[in-house]
């Protein structure tokens, strides 16, 4: 149910933005270094049981930017990257929960609903620059904390995983 809605939302967004996105039922193989692996209940794969992305593939998806204050920086920072739901649409994710796994094996679960409800960004640029690992890169799931008061809570700060390398789509 959720996946279908998600699918429809993603398609509608693609059409509305008029971007020449690759068809959702096909995913290129990564050419550069793999920075994100999506596994679990997904409909589209390009590497065995998983879908792998290099940075160019993520950059090819529609990009979204916003600035927000976070607990990790003293100042507001600008984050840029594809919306998380676009990424999930690209792999036809069908579960209910996303398990984000960081480079140091940090794990956190966030409901797939968050990606649909809020404009969650899988940030790959901070202040328009690529994010090195020492600066919480290369990928950072970031909530638009400044746009919604309810997001400024422990629950959402803990879900904002950084140094993400894998997203496991769970039942």
């Amino acid at each position, binding site marked *: 149910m959720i996946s279908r809605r998600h699918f429809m939302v993603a398609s509608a967004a693609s059409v509305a933005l008029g971007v020449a996105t690759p068809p959702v039922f096909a995913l290129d193989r990564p050419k550069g270094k793999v920075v994100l692996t999506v596994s679990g209940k997904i409909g589209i794969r390009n590497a065995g049981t998983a879908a792998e992305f290099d940075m160019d593939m993520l950059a090819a998806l529609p990009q979204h930017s916003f600035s927000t204050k976070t607990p*990790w920086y003293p100042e507001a920072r600008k984050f840029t990257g594809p919306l998380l739901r676009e990424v999930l649409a690209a792999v036809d994710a069908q579960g209910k929960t996303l398990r984000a796994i960081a*480079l*140091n094996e940090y794990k956190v679960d966030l409901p797939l609903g968050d990606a649909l409800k809020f404009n969650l960004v899988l940030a790959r640029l901070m202040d328009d620059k690529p994010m090195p690992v*020492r*600066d919480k890169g290369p990928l950072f799931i970031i909530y638009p904390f400044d746009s919604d008061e309810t997001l*400024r*809570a*422990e629950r959402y700060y803990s879900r904002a995983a950084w140094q993400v390398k894998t997203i496991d789509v769970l039942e």
Partner: protein
Amino acid sequence: MNGDAAAEPVAARAPTSRVGRLMVLMVVLLSAVFGGIGWLQTQSLALLNANVVYQGDNIVWSFFQLETESLRLGQMLHDVAEEKQAGHHEALRERYELFVSRISLVEPHRTREVMPELEMQRQVLTRLRDLVSRLDPLLGPEAPAQIDPARIRVFLPEFEALGKSVRDLSLLANQAVAETITRRNEAVRDQNRIGIGLTIFQCLMIGAFAFVVVRQVRSLEQRRSELETLALNLQEARAEAEQASRTKSAFLANMSHELRTPFNGLLGMMSLLDRSSLTAQQREYLGIARQSGEHLLTILNDVLDFSKMESGRLEMVARPTDLRQTVSEVQALMAPQARDKALKLEVEVAADLPEVVQADAKRVKQILFNLLGNAIKFTDTGRVGLTVDRGHTSTGRPGVRFRITDTGIGMGEETRTRLFQRFSQGDNSISRRFGGTGLGLEISRTLAELMDGEISVTSQVGRGSEFTVVLPLAALDPSALVAASGGGAPVRIGAADSPALQLSDRAVADTPAAGSLQVLVTDDHPVNRKFMQVLLERLGHRVLLATNGEEAVVIVREQPCDLVLMDVHMPVMDGLTAARTIRSLPLPASRVLIVALTADAFAESRERVRQSGMDDFLAKPVQLHDVEELLRKHFGARAVGSMGSGASPAAVPATAPAAAMPASHVSKVVVATASTPDKPARRRVRIKPGEPARVLDLAHIADTCAALSADAYRTLLAGFMSDESASLSGLLVLLEQGGEADERAKAAHRLKGAAASLGLRELAETAGALEADAASLTEESAPQMAQHLRTQFETAREMATRLGWLVA
């Protein structure tokens, strides 16, 4: 509540200020409490918010991560330095990057909000940054792909030492955060304690508030019930007072009525006395006595009117009235008074005034008599004026305006304000000089109010006064007057400026032909019938006779009558039934004017009379002026005929009837009286002084002689004394041989009526008492009563004979 009942009134006496202050204090305290609670809440929220932002990425967790990454990197550096795991350089770089990324997490700008900045933290961070700056050329993003284990090895001891410091820092930070959390918890606990304290205080305040409110409500409740009881008591007291007042007024009315009769007698006697031969001094004394008597009678009439108003017995009977004629009559009657004081009486009637209005003429005249009488009384020189035109009441109702002006003494502001007050005279010094009851104006005002009108006054001391009466009298079509008076054109009497005497002269000259009425007299007693017949015929009317109600109904059905005089108590069919029957006849018979003849003067019987459909009421014994007034009221001046409309003072309450009796008639009586004292009497009875007045109603007799002629009276009296109608003998038989109380009462009633008509006062009174007490007569008292009646009858006969009214 201390439940002390005696303390209650004290609390109730000064509650408002004390309770008010208490309320204000409570409101202030409650506001303070709410303010405090608000402040506490804000503080708690701030505390919570501060924690929320940075607690997220738990600070202790950050130190722990740094420690972990440091250990992992240390292990890997060790492995690479020992070249245990060749080719893991890429993994080492990533591990190094991860380690570096954790350093920024423990920087003071992140930890400041949750824990104090530690000296050790600063030192460790400096050392870490220093190490990173030296390791970057070896492991950082810009470093060459190949890592030299030898160069790594150099760093190993330093890194291990730093690892220990990082662990120590982690533990210290843990303690510091725990300390902070404890402090925060304590703060929260303190705030909670204060909050609980404030809440308890708030509860207490609300409790106190509720207590005060409950007490207030209870005291209000008590006050309300007290007020209710008071109101109830007052209501009862008022009802009682009103009842007492009504009873008193009724008593006064009856008393006045009772007083009037002997007064008339007194004045009548003086009148007779005046015609006898007297010395000049005696005549002077008599004149003074008569003036006093007349004055007293005026007052009595005022009191009677006033009492009637008070006891609610005064009724207004509005009929189509010729307004100009009414004014002319007033003018005619006031003219002599004005002339006596050499005042000019000017009457002016506006041309656009309606000819006929709906009004109780008698009461309108009474108001005008009062006001004009006052004006004349308080004016020594100059003029008294009456102006009648159209006007409006203060509420805007159209009507007739009467203005009474004078050039008299006038009055000041203070007097004017007290003018219409009950029982107060305008000015005591003046009233002593001019006399009067002070009721005249009050009566006038009450009468005007009963007619929905009003009276106002303007005045200036020494310049005179102007009274304005506005009565909302509805204008009628002139034909209404014709309909009401039963045919014939209303006699319209001249222009307003025609002198009063001329007016009355002309009225007398005009009347006999124009004013003849067809009158049906219904009475079971022949004396009464005869009396009424003679009286009416002398007034120039045609008379039909009926002996009971049934006969009256037959006559009314067969021939047109203008007026039916109806005795109330009659055999076969009584007057009430007869009136009802007549009212149910087809038109025009049912419209005939019916006037009751009754000896009852009480409102209750009047009410019964009215309910039966009769229009008016004539009290027995019937007096000439009563008949005149009745006819004038219903048919206008024309109906009074040659007995003298304007010349008769009968309508003027201020003048005793006997005093104004036409001289010619009186002299006849006097002649008769004077010429017979020496005639042989059947029996010489010594008549004591005062006895004639007790036995005979001389004023009534004088009136009757005046109305009928002395001869007619003598005939009637002779008929009665020979007991033609068996009035007395019938009653005596019933008394002496036993009879039903009902029968006795009826017979007594008949005797009473006849005796009263003939002015046999004592006999009439005894018969009246017998009528009232017929039921209580015993076997012993009945013959006594018969004997008593017989004696009185003989006394009356003897006296009449001695006076020469009967042939012995």
